[in-house]
């Protein structure tokens, strides 16, 4: 696996697909032999970003979520994108505990968790255009195998 291995996926923005997205990305990175902890972190990032696209990005509207994952060596690049309402003030929403939807019992911890589970994060968003999150994470323990079978 010297050349890049790439995977793209797009899917309906419904909550049933949160688990699908987590499992798909986890299965894609499995050949890198991530530890259980790394795998949990990756699934959590995907879950946070996809959930945000569904709840905040599209809300009541139906829409499509775009996911791209690329592996080169021990480096994973992950992009999760929606074409929803977008974010007006990115600095504001990235603050721990900030949520625009306390009525939905959101914890406001999504961005904080995503930031702490990756090596790099980039947020691109434009009002009424949508939001694009780009993550870089290094799978630092190619030796220790976590084996999952689904």
């Amino acid at each position, binding site marked *: 696996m010297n050349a890049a291995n790439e995977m793209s996926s797009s899917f309906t923005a419904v909550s049933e697909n949160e688990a699908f997205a*987590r499992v798909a990305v986890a299965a894609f990175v499995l050949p890198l032999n991530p530890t259980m902890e790394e795998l949990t972190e990756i699934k959590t990032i995907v879950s946070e970003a996809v*959930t945000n696209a569904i709840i905040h990005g599209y809300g009541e509207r139906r829409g499509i979520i775009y996911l791209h994952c690329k592996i080169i060596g021990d480096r994973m690049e992950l992009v999760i994108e929606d074409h929803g309402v977008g974010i007006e003030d990115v600095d504001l929403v990235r603050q721990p*505990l900030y949520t625009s939807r306390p009525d939905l019992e959101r914890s406001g*911890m999504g961005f904080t*968790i995503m930031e702490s589970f990756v090596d790099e994060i980039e947020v691109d968003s434009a009002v009424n255009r949508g939001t694009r999150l780009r993550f870089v994470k290094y799978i630092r323990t190619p030796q220790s195998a976590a084996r999952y079978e689904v």
Partner: protein
Amino acid sequence: MRVQVDRRHRGSILVASLAGELDHHAAQAVRITLDQELAGQHGIRLILDLSGVTFMDSSGLGVILGRYKKIRDSGGEMAIAGASRSIDRLLEMSGLHKIVRMYPNCEVAVVALKEVVK
């Protein structure tokens, strides 16, 4: 997500055991199930047993915090039991572990909660 609610010690302590993946998709059903138990009760003591939870994200934090506030506002007590290492990490990040009592497992939580409220 499966949610099972047991009444222990003549109904004075409720144990709600969650099993499966506690994400946004599961959150709504968990919320409804738990709130049915809490409705109209004052001074309830609830143990949230998370030992069967195989995945949780910030949507789970929201559900837990929401129940905590309700119970606190009605003069009750809530504790968390059996959180895995990765769930523990999320609880810590959110500051929840500072306000909610945490126990390694359900049995310990039951004993401790009985002491607390005596």
